[in-house]
């Protein structure tokens, strides 16, 4: 377990020293949401706010995926991680946790503020936050799989987005549904189920993709 926490600590440390990466994700999130606000106009904005915030959050999260495995792939650290006694699935999980803490959580924190700016209906905020709290880890898990699959490819960033965005459509659908209080708890439960499913499958698939990428 020492190894598992050492990986989380190292990723957090690296993430916090590259603060520009985190702020770029947040700035992109805010910008996309603002573009929608200008594009849609004030009358229908409130109804769309949930969907706009979710779409912007998904796109912003895509920006941060290339720092998951690419640095280790480039500097040879990936080989060392594969050769470490920590099972590669746990290595992946540690990196996903660190990624969520440095990308998902900041998005989660900024979302209510942007919600205010987009005239998100008052009763929608708890649903939005619960949904995002469950949805952003799914993004990190699926994103890790995408990032691992495209390691070593040219234009990897675009490829990751093309691979992952279709897969997160269900997250988007249930996430937006969760912002409407009339839907009750069902969408949140679906998101929770998807999170558990991703948690059970993604680390293994990602580890297999990583093993392929080093030789």
């Amino acid at each position, binding site marked *: 377990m020492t190894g598992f926490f*050492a990986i989380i600590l*190292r990723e957090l440390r*690296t993430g916090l020293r590259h603060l520009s990466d985190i702020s770029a994700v947040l700035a992109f999130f805010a910008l996309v949401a603002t573009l929608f606000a200008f594009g849609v106009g004030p009358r229908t904005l409130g109804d769309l706010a949930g969907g706009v915030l979710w779409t912007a959050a998904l796109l912003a999260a895509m920006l941060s995926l290339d720092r998951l495995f690419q640095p280790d792939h480039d*500097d040879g650290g990936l080989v*060392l991680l594969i*050769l470490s*006694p920590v099972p590669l699935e746990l290595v992946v999980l540690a990196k996903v946790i660190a990624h969520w803490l440095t990308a998902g959580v900041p998005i989660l924190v900024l979302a209510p503020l942007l919600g205010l700016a987009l005239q998100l209906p008052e009763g929608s905020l708890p649903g939005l936050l619960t949904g995002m709290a469950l949805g952003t880890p799914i993004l990190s898990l699926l994103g890790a799989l995408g990032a691992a699959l495209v390691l070593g490819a040219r234009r990897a960033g675009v490829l990751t987005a093309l691979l992952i965005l279709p897969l997160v459509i269900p997250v988007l659908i249930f996430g937006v549904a969760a912002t409407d209080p009339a839907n009750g708890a069902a969408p949140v439960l679906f998101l929770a189920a998807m999170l558990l499913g991703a948690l059970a499958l993604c680390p293994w698939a990602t580890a297999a993709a990583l093993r392929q990428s080093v*030789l």
Partner: protein
Amino acid sequence: MTAGEAPLFRGEDIACRRGGHELFHGVGFALWPGDALLLTGPNGSGKTSLLQVMAGLRTPSAGRLDWQGRDIRDDLAAHAGRLHHIGHRTGSRAILTAREDLLFWSRVRAPVSRQRCLLALARFDLLHLRDLPVQALSSGQQRRLALARLLAAPADIWLLDEPAVGLDLSGLASLEAAVARHRRSGGLVVIATHTPVELDNPVRGLELDRASGQVPEHGS
């Protein structure tokens, strides 16, 4: 030597393909506690690939490798846990300090104390640079930092791929001293190098020849 006992780490009739053509075939080795194996051969003869095969990273196209008589493929995770692999690229994050980097790569392997890491840094003459980010170190210093991992976290087998590249004389001396200590305590070392590295006798040699891939084994 210890003729009666079975070897600790043995490879038999190993062949390796890469990119569709055969790099070598029929390669074998047998190592007892304290042994050193020197891999030599021209560029492209497969020294790095053989080291990766020994580490369990690369699957050989033929042959088998045993640790204490058991195939390493039976438990690759356990095999990874008993070896250090120092390759061409060191895996150090540019933005972390030397101490953080060493502590990380050691703790991934074992619950190592800070004290032990500092000692390893001192052995490779990096103690005064410990709080500098890796990107501020020269390539030789980064190489020393990678080698310090050998001392910080213990492992039975050291697989060293051109460990002396970029090292100055004192760095080379530190490496040689570390290898000698490791062997005295019963560890195994496999080194692929073009730079002469002074090793205590006996040294086993394994020459990879691009043409035949055949290997004369000799103690010297």
